[in-house]
């Protein structure tokens, strides 16, 4: 698909036009998460990243799956139509390449091809919401997207991938929807030149260098197979206070719980985020707990992302966004964990 450029001072007009068709969400001014906005200049603010990844726009912290009502005639089960999960036409603007890559990883997990069943709630939210990405101007402390094999900084996994070239944005349409989004900016875009493309590639390559610590994210997969019984897990997990922040704020974590709530004869079933870092995550009613200590839970978290899911999908489930590094209350650093594991001797 053709590439475009748009002058920076024209970009807000493009978003304003899109705002007539879509409810635009962009990184909120408080830095917490994506928020509804009509500030089309601020939407493309280039620095930082939101604390909460945009996954919650597609996979909310809590989501009703069905409602029920018990009566004389038995139980009435009412489906919550998956399409009703998103009622407005949304557009996400300013998603960072790491988070865009994470969405494409979640697409796989929630697909039919992955486990034989498609998740209709995730899919309908995803289908209803195009994404415009923007490469960051500066990495944050703890960012290591440059080491994440699945993150394309130049051409992020979005409908339109933007890269700031100084006085203009490079805009690559990566899907038909992306083409339509650019078409809405009729008269504002020009075709990208080879020089623009080179400039884009150079900026992305430089950013990769700045966010790379040469962590062997992909290579660890084979190594981890021999480390399941390593005493290192115990050592590395000692500080963990089981708060679950690392996984709640991880853009690729997707584990959830399903619960019922009822008052009297009526109630609803919902799913909500859960984490393998909680003690009772795998606790069975019989009292058996295959992941009873912090060491087993850290192993699950690391191996799930870097070995088990890669075995299933051939993709690495860490995008180097650095949230778990920045926001862990006790300073556990996944980069150190990865480094320690990569030099460990197999048991």
């Amino acid at each position: 698909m053709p590439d475009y450029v748009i002058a920076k001072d024209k970009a807000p007009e493009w978003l304003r036009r899109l705002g007539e068709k879509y409810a635009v969400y962009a990184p909120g001014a408080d830095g917490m998460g994506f928020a509804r906005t009509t500030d089309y200049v601020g939407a493309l603010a280039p620095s930082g990243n939101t604390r909460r990844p945009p996954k919650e726009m597609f996979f909310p912290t809590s989501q009703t799956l069905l409602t029920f009502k018990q009566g004389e005639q038995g139980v009435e089960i009412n489906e919550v139509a998956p399409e009703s999960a998103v009622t407005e036409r949304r557009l996400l603007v300013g998603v960072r390449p790491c988070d865009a890559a994470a969405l494409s990883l979640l697409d796989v997990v929630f697909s039919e091809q992955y486990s034989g069943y498609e998740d209709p709630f995730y899919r309908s939210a995803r289908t209803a919401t195009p994404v415009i990405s923007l490469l960051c101007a500066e990495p944050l402390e703890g960012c290591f997207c440059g080491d994440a094999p699945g993150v394309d900084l130049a051409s992020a996994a979005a409908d339109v991938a933007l890269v700031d070239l100084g006085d203009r944005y490079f805009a690559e349409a990566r899907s038909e929807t992306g083409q339509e989004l650019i078409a809405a900016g009729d008269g504002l875009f020009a075709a990208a030149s080879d020089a623009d493309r080179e400039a884009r590639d150079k900026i992305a390559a430089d950013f990769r260098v700045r966010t790379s610590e040469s962590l062997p994210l992909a290579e660890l997969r084979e190594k981890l197979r021999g480390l399941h019984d390593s005493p290192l897990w115990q050592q590395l997990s000692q500080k963990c206070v089981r708060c679950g922040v690392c996984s709640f704020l991880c853009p690729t974590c997707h584990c959830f719980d399903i619960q019922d709530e009822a008052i009297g004869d009526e109630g609803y079933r919902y799913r909500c985020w859960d984490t393998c870092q909680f003690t009772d995550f795998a606790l069975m009613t019989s009292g058996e707990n295959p992941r009873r200590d912090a060491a087993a839970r850290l192993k699950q978290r690391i191996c799930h992302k870097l070995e088990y899911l890669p075995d299933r999908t051939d993709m690495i489930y860490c995008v180097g966004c650095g949230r778990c590094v920045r926001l862990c209350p006790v300073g556990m650093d996944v980069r150190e964990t990865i480094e320690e594991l990569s030099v460990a001797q197999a048991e």
Partner: protein
Amino acid sequence: MPKPSNPYLPSPARIEEVRVETPDTKTFKVVFCEDDCRDGFAYRPGHFAEVSVFGVGEAPFCINSTPTRPGFLEFSIKRMGRVTSAMHEMMGGEQIGVRGPLGNSFPVEEWRGRKLLFIGGGIGLAPLRSAINYCLDNRADYGEINVVYGARSPADLVYKPELEQWGARSDMKLHLTVDGGNEEWKGRVGFVPPLVTELGPSREDTIAITCGPPIMIRLVLQGLAQLGFSDEQIVTTLEMRMKCGIGKCGRCNIGRSYVCVDGPVYNLAQLKALGGEH
């Protein structure tokens, strides 16, 4: 069978009959409220289902009836936690939800022509029951069938009327034992694993299928290995904590394998290849 468009949506089902098996286990005979749910529910021995008690929650249970006797499903439920306790309060005529069939199943076609050795402990007979009755209903397809079953006490043996029927059949052998007997118990007293060793089944053309408490399974596996059974000849069905049942919610994995979609049935070779925690 076409996949449901919303795999989180259970079908309403009615409890037809509740049978008390042991002081803590009941069997629920369940019939779908809608004909197309009943007809569309194509299950095989080894499949499980998510059972809903609305307002309390959902929990996974193996289906222990056999598809060769259609029209209903049976679940045997031991009173353990919230959902199981709520099930135990339910009576005939009340309504639950059923989502499934889920998971893989016993490879009963591959077993054709083989001798079958079923080894169960306690409530672990439940998943085996479906396969045993399936094979008995297709008796000509299989060789010799032996069932070894034990429980802590005579009162803890499940499916007693069925055990009597199996014991009376000439085309299979039932070997019962209890960990501790009582005055009325005339049968064997002792654990399951030594009984298997004592029976000394030939490994030739035999598949051993086992389910029970972890300690029993461990010792049975050792015993079978000593008898020369290869890992491929030993099949078991696993339990892990599950929620979604469709490979999304991320808690029931053993290594890369999700027990809810890739299991719960594994042979020992597959289990060993998974490594990681069991």
